[in-house]
């Protein structure tokens, strides 16, 4: 064994910094999760802090603050999945129906743009575009004789803004994978359908959609973790005091408890709960997919 390692010593020399990187920046924080079971004191460190068992997890579910945050997270993420998952599939189907290559290219290029911008830039754009006095939507509302809506400060509208801007940012880029799957469909099938005199909408429904179903299943598994993993970058930059009752989610809560208020152990417990829940979500989606089809990631 040692001889085999010796024969590959230069390869291991290459691998060494990478293994060290993962040990330090990934495994050390996993060890650091222990602080969720302690009353962690910075000066004492993990080895010196007192273990308190599940105290922080009990506090999580008996306290006043975490449960509403968890509820917000699940509601916002459920809506994001409900609209955000089918949106790129629909977009890919629509783009596939465009016969003019120039139009196709322009629409695709434009649709990628928000994907390449940070949520700081995008929130600046969103705040300006939803402005009660200059935003196009509000101007249209006012021209129709309705009252302008302060979308970002209205508890009835804030989640809608989060869901729609998330879909808006990602739909173009996420459609790529489905477009590639569509491009791989055998053209003979469409020709046969044409001979049978089938319309374009039916072709889309009976040929294209079933053909890309395996890709859709894999994407379901890959995105299942996002029922609990919220988008910190988006929500942190759009959240404000007026709507924190409906918009505060696990990651923003972890940040304000852990970094701003320095309740390290409690915030670590929140984070651990989230990570375990996300892992369970992915594993169960994979399990279900294995039961019903051959398309799994694990």
């Amino acid at each position: 064994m040692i001889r085999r390692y010796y024969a590959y010593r230069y390869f291991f020399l290459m691998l060494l910094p990478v293994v060290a990187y993962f040990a330090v920046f990934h495994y050390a924080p996993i060890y650091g999760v222990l602080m969720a079971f302690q009353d962690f004191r910075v000066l004492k460190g993990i080895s010196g802090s007192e273990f308190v068992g599940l105290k922080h997890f009990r506090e999580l579910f008996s306290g006043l603050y975490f449960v509403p945050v968890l509820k917000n997270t699940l509601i916002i993420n459920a809506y994001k999945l409900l609209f955000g998952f089918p949106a790129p599939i629909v977009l890919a189907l629509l783009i596939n129906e465009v016969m003019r290559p120039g139009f196709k290219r322009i629409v695709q290029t434009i649709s990628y743009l928000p994907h390449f911008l940070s949520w700081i830039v995008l929130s600046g754009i969103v705040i300006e575009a939803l402005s009660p006095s200059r935003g196009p939507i509000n101007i249209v509302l006012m021209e129709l004789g309705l009252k302008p809506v302060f979308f970002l400060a209205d508890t009835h509208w804030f989640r809608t803004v989060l869901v729609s801007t998330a879909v808006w940012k990602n739909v173009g880029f996420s459609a790529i994978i489905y477009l590639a799957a569509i491009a791989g469909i055998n053209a003979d099938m469409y020709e046969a359908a044409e001979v049978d005199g089938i319309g374009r909408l039916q072709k889309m429904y009976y040929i294209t959609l079933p053909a890309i179903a395996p890709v859709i299943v894999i994407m379901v598994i890959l995105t299942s973790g996002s029922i609990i993993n919220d988008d910190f970058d988006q929500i942190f930059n759009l959240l404000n005091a007026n709507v924190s009752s409906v918009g505060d989610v696990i990651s923003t809560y972890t940040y304000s408890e852990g970094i701003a208020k320095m309740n390290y152990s409690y915030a670590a417990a929140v984070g651990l709960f989230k990570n375990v829940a996300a892992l369970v979500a992915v594993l169960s989606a994979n399990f279900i997919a294995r039961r019903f089809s051959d398309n799994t990631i694990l």
Partner: protein
Amino acid sequence: MKHRRMSDRLFSLTVYALLSGLALTIVLPMMQVLTISVSPLAVVNRYGFHLIPTAFDFSGYRQVFHKQTIWTGYENTLIRTVLGTSITIVMTFLGAYPLSKRQLPHRAFWTGFIVLTMFFSGGLIPSYMLVKNIGLMNTVWSLVLPGAVSAFMLLIVRNFIGSLPESLEESAKIDGANDVYILWKIVVPLSMPILATVALYAAVDHWNAWFDSMLYIRQEKKQVLQLILRKIIIDGTADPSTTGAADAMNAPTNSQAMKMAALVVTMLPIMCVYPFLQKYFVKGTLLGSVKG
């Protein structure tokens, strides 16, 4: 038959209308941002659409360029992007090449050691504590090291190198080439397309990153451009720890042109570059979709 053609035409019309609608939701806000950034106060405060400039006033841009923090922010972002991307490419390749060798002892274990981190992580607080404890606070290393290697990207590169024909290396060996020569003259050049993809993704991530700078960097002159922009447009103040989208909107809007100018200055580099690089990004997402 005539009926069918009618329904197909209606279908076509709907498709074009929906796609144009989507494009407009992206183009119109951009036009509004650009217009506000070059408009005088009187125009900014006027009721109505602001999609095409009616009067010009570049004082917003002048204010932005007079801010020292915009320049230091640009510099810091450039430094972290170049440094971070270089580290990512080198480290990803260093990990991927040995793991692509099928004969490597305990290859499955070493691969698993890396892959496992895709499914579980310590979370925000332990990671923050780590950076604090190993003394990276307030240095550029806190921005480039924690996310240096993505296990997912490493796997993609490993699969790519593994799919290169082995006969290439073997025949070079027969010709008397040593390992270093093979690595440098054969493997690295052949891996360039995939490494370029890794580099592009890493570069965009670094350009857009801000949270790590907010967490780990205390001095304003060391902070990245995105965070400086956040302070200008969202907070309206110099305190990064408060979130106040609504407060920013309630503030008197005389600074609105300046805010939008800062926004344009931040996104301009990406907007100029991405249309030309999009095909590489497209290739990148598709590489990721191959089951490894």
